């Protein structure tokens, strides 16, 4: 080719110059573990389902949600949302109102009649689930979706366990509970009510079961020795709350004293108020800070006119006169008696001192290990007897519906593996997405959406649900407050900010990849990634 004067080389593109050789650090896309997912006892992929809710695809969001938890309408109402306590957005403005969105998705599913998808063909194994509470239902659901035949034996007259007999209606309306249980049973699960299992090995043999999951809960109320006359009316919280589900609610009288500081104490005090008690007083021997009940529930109770006597024990009851002793905290934070006494007038004493597990069905099972009245299980939820698994309130753990549902899922996966003579492989956990890994500049300012609350008069006299739900517009807003911590949400920042065009955009839903031929390793993509889904790693030479 004849070239102009002083030109000796052909023109070329700079693409011939692979600037990737300059690099000593390389950016890598990662998925980090969002703190909400990390905190969820039911192992929900919260960030995962919020991703679909953000775009208004509620159906897909719900399907993602129920991969881990079959009861979102219920969970969105009764869960104490540890996810929100862990939420990184709390460090920015306020935590995402995750439970409200979950509830919205659950209600939407019930309203529109969404059904679970069955993907796995039947495998011919039959599993016995003892107990129709949250843990048993969760296990049954997951086992059914893994292809197993499941039969639930429930001792009570209705399903739901403590969700029905422990959680008052004003927190969990029964039509929601019934609908979510029904949808699980629709998977072909057999539920036998009023069927108490007295001897687990016998029941398994008789029914030809290949494995069993025990989740009988903790229904036996703890007692304490309070000197009292026979005439005094002393009830326990469990039987009061259970009585609410029968045709004849318990008669509690005008002035009710509840002894204890847990959530059950609050539930029963609030129930007493709704039943017409003019005075509902909680006596607790420690302080507000030490109360195991959740603070927002205490606040709701106080709003409704429940009174609390902190740092007091009940020492003696005579007819309607209760003697209480003032306590004081010692240096270690334990309450110690002071010798100062006071009296209270009341008609009924309700004990809310916790519950024990009825372990009689396990009497003849060899190899079992007990721990403080609960059944010990290994990391796979299996008891000391091969093929018998246990979960929920009857194993040592925090006793919440969410934990129980998580146990059910975990046990189901391990039962499935055990039935295949396999071990359930657990994927390694990703690194936690901490707040300092985010670039919060990019998130728009947005205050938390507040759920409507029932007015106080109706809260004091009816069992109508206290917390309202979100509607579609504000549920969508709330879902979009998610920061998507640690997981790419395709904001195109890396693609945009690379001065070297070394980020390849793969298209909607397909994320991005790096072109290491040209990436100089400046790290701008990692710095400007809002959600911390890019990490810089040193090149090896």
């Amino acid at each position, binding site marked *: 080719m004849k070239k102009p004067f002083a*030109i000796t*080389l*052909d*023109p*070329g*593109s*700079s*693409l*011939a*110059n*692979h*600037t990737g050789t*300059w690099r000593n650090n390389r950016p890598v896309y990662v998925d980090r573990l969002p703190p909400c997912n990390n905190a969820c006892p039911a192992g929900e992929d919260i960030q995962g389902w919020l991703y679909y809710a*953000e*775009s208004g695809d509620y159906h897909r969001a719900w399907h993602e949600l129920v991969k881990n938890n079959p009861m979102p309408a219920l969970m969105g109402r009764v869960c104490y949302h540890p996810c929100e306590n862990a939420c990184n957005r709390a460090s920015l403005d306020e935590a995402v109102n995750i439970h409200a969105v979950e509830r919205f998705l659950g209600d939407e599913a019930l309203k529109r009649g969404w059904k679970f998808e069955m993907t796995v063909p039947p495998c011919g194994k039959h599993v016995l689930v003892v107990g129709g509470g949250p843990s048993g239902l969760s296990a049954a659901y997951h086992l059914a979706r893994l292809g197993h035949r499941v039969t639930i034996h429930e001792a009570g007259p209705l399903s739901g366990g403590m969700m029905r007999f422990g959680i008052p209606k004003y927190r969990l309306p029964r039509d929601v509970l019934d609908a979510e249980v029904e949808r699980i049973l629709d998977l072909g699960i057999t539920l036998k009510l009023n069927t108490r299992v007295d001897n687990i090995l016998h029941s398994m043999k008789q029914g030809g079961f290949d494995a069993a999951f025990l989740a009988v809960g903790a229904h036996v109320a703890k007692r304490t020795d309070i000197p009292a006359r026979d005439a005094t009316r002393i009830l326990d919280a469990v039987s009061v709350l259970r009585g609410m589900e029968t045709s004849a609610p318990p008669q509690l009288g005008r002035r009710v004293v509840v002894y204890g500081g847990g959530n059950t104490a609050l539930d029963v005090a609030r129930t007493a108020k709704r039943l017409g008690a003019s005075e509902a007083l909680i006596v607790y021997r420690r302080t507000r800070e030490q109360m195991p009940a959740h603070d927002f529930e205490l606040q709701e109770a106080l709003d409704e006119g429940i009174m609390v006597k902190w740092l007091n024990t009940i020492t003696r009851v005579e007819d309607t006169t209760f003697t209480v002793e003032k306590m004081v905290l010692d240096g270690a934070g334990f309450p110690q008696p002071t010798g100062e006494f006071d009296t209270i007038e009341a008609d009924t004493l309700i004990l809310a001192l916790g519950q024990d597990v009825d372990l009689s069905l396990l009497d003849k099972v060899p190899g079992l290990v007990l721990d403080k009245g609960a059944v010990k299980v290994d990391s796979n939820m299996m008891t000391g007897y091969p093929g018998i698994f246990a979960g929920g309130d009857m194993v040592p753990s925090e006793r919440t519906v969410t934990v129980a549902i998580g146990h059910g899922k975990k046990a189901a996966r391990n039962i499935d593996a055990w039935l295949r003579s396999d071990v359930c492989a657990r994927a390694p956990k990703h690194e936690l997405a901490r707040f300092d890994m985010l670039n919060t*500049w*990019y*998130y*728009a*300012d*947005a205050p938390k959406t507040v759920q409507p609350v029932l007015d106080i008069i109706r809260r004091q006299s009816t069992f109508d649900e206290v917390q309202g739900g979100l509607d579609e517009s504000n549920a969508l*807003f709330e879902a*979009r*407050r*998610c920061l*998507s911590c640690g997981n790419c*949400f*395709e*904001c*195109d*920042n890396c*693609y*945009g*900010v*690379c*001065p*070297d*065009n*070394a980020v390849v*955009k793969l*298209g*909607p839903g397909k994320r991005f990849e790096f*072109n290491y*031929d*040209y990436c*100089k*390793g*400046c*790290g*701008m993509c*990692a*710095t*400007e990634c*809002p959600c911390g889904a890019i990490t*810089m790693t040193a090149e090896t030479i």
Partner: protein
Amino acid sequence: MAFQPVKFYQTGTFTVGNRLLADSERTVQANMRRTNSLNSGHRACQGCGEALGARYAIDAAMQATGNQVMAVNATGCLEVFSTPYPETSWQIPWMHSLFGNAAAVASGVAAALRVKGRSSVKVIAQGGDGGTTDIGFGCLSGMFERNDDVLYICYDNEAYMNTGVQRSSATPPAARTATTMAVGPHPGNVFGTGKNLPLIAMAHHIPYVATASVANLHDLEVKVMRAMGIEGARYIHIHVPCPLGWGSAPADTIKIARLAVESGLFPLFEAERGEITDRHKLRRRVPVEEYLKPQRRFAHLFGARPDVNTIASIQAIADRNVRTLGLAD
């Protein structure tokens, strides 16, 4: 009409794209088919703000004109790193003549196009702050004065970076450069010197003047697109941090640019025919220390005994910008 940020869609319009927004509300840079006017393989340093700013601006201009753009480039980093003989990174018609005459050459190109009746083709002249505020200033002022149909874009990295970080008339006070060393009783560049070229451009009463930053892509693209729709002389001044010359981390280029804006030291505004028509309100205002501290060119202000008087003088500049331009709500 100013750029309207979307109030709330997870990240709103702060990020480059946003899967929740309509395509028309995303940036040109979010588009899989952006022109990549300044392509890979260029020899700019890691984290170069100028390479980024040039692609942002020219891609937006290409989008606005249906790819009918020609560019004239002054000598400087941008020219050197993009076109080492015989390679080029430019995917547009592009020419380079001298350090000081980019505006004049662009005026000539525009005149030639007019003579040939090619009214659809638009001309952009571009250069660094040295080629714009110092060496090419006479030619640029002439281009403004004649109201030639050219958009001139200045990529301001506040010194002559290509030749080894010498002071320009855009170097900020107290900054250390090779010619304003951090020595003596008043280390770094002298206070009270230099030029504010956007204000000088406004004094020519040309149709459009704007400042922009690589830290605010939506704003930058809207300004370039608006400029491409206007006839006559237009000027956009884009703040582009230089990791090498400023002594900042390559990964922090956009962060530094954002701190310049949010401290008030680099105000973003638009002006038409000499009058300011819009300004970018500060979102998270920061003291100037936050901007100065991560840059080694200001390291002499900190250390064991911070030079609080100098820092206060720089803060006063930021405060004046905020006050006179109404940057705070």
